[in-house]
């Protein structure tokens, strides 16, 4: 009942989806239709069914849900291993991003069994049967499980994630105490997989204007960096009814972060900084 960390799986799932129709609110070209079935040969002993979202831009048809059977004795333990197995042995047109296979690059972020996670750090044994694999929610799809991240990167660039310095460069390093460096812990580790942003309902409804938890977490990372010399300008650009205040503290972001980070807390800290700048202090 009490989830202690984001990689903890619930003991029982009360509701797999919200009670809305399968294609609720999806425009006509996004509706998902039933797709192909790819059974595995009879010799396999441990078989698991993978329902995977497919979309081929060259075919001009709607996205489909294809059903793959995977021989678990022939592929590695992670969901990414199964996807690579399918691509090698079953359907080589299956498209998905991956790189480090160890949970540090953020490329293989996708929606597995209803929650956003990295495919390379999710054990197949921890997933349901059949497993459902969708791309990151509410993003334009280029092909299969590959979403278009251009807007997300633009929003990341919008928070100016680099050091602003006005004073001349020091001869050696910019000094920072241990305590000041500790303020960056929990924020600098973000791998920009965008699981949080694509899992935020507020981003689903207003992603064009709301910056999203990933960009805002980095905005806080730079705001709280003692070496940065433009916190006022950063807060100026953030303080907007939608860019920052589009956050409704739903906290899906913190729940889903595959690195165990806390974007919700970062956003709350930014809002508190905004209030402090307006002259309110409740904690000295």
């Amino acid at each position: 009942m009490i989830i202690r960390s984001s990689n903890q799986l619930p003991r029982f799932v009360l509701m797999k989806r919200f009670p809305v129709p399968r294609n609720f609110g999806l425009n006509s070209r996004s509706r998902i239709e039933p797709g192909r079935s790819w059974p595995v040969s009879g010799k396999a002993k441990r078989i698991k069914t993978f329902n995977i979202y497919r979309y081929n831009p060259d075919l001009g048809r709607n996205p489909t849900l294809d059903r793959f059977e995977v021989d678990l004795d022939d592929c590695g333990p992670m969901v990414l291993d199964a996807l690579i197995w399918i691509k090698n042995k079953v359907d080589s047109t299956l498209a998905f991003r991956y790189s480090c296979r160890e949970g540090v690059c953020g490329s293989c972020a996708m929606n597995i069994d209803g929650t956003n996670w990295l495919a390379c750090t999710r054990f197949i044994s921890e997933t349901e049967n059949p497993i459902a694999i969708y791309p990151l929610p509410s993003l334009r799809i280029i092909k299969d499980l590959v979403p278009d991240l251009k807007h997300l990167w633009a929003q990341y660039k919008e928070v100016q994630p680099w050091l602003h310095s006005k004073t001349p460069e020091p001869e050696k390093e910019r000094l920072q105490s241990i305590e000041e460096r500790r303020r960056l812990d929990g924020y600098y580790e973000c791998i920009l997989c965008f699981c949080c942003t694509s899992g935020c309902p507020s981003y689903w409804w207003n992603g064009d204007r709301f910056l999203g938890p990933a960009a805002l977490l980095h905005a806080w990372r730079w705001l709280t960096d003692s070496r940065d010399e433009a916190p006022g300008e950063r807060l100026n650009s953030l303080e907007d009814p939608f860019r920052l205040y589009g956050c409704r503290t739903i906290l899906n972001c913190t729940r889903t972060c595959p690195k165990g980070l806390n974007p919700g807390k970062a956003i709350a800290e930014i809002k508190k900084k905004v209030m402090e700048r307006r002259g309110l202090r409740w904690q000295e």
Partner: protein
Amino acid sequence: MTRRRERTLLEGAGHWWRERVTAVALIPLTLWFFASIIAHSANDYSAVIAWLRMPSSTLMMVLLLVALFYHTALGLQTIIDDYVHSARKVPALIIMRLGCLALAAAGTFAVLRIVVRG
């Protein structure tokens, strides 16, 4: 900073702050209201009127109405901001705000009428 930027600066933060202030104000006000209503649930008309005519009750009731409908207007604005995107957004916001204003005014009018007329 230009004046336009200042207006934008206040908009999001101001809305957020006012929503919190009205929320904090509403905690004691609503609890007072609930406690009073439960305590008076057996009483007849004249007892309820006597209770409302007490200066403390009148003041709390008017404060409750103001804070309640201000908080309602701010909250419903958030909801409309989230779900209504087309040109329907502006009339929706206007109707909602005027509705909350009208309800608060009607409630205050009723309370004052009870105080004046008995």
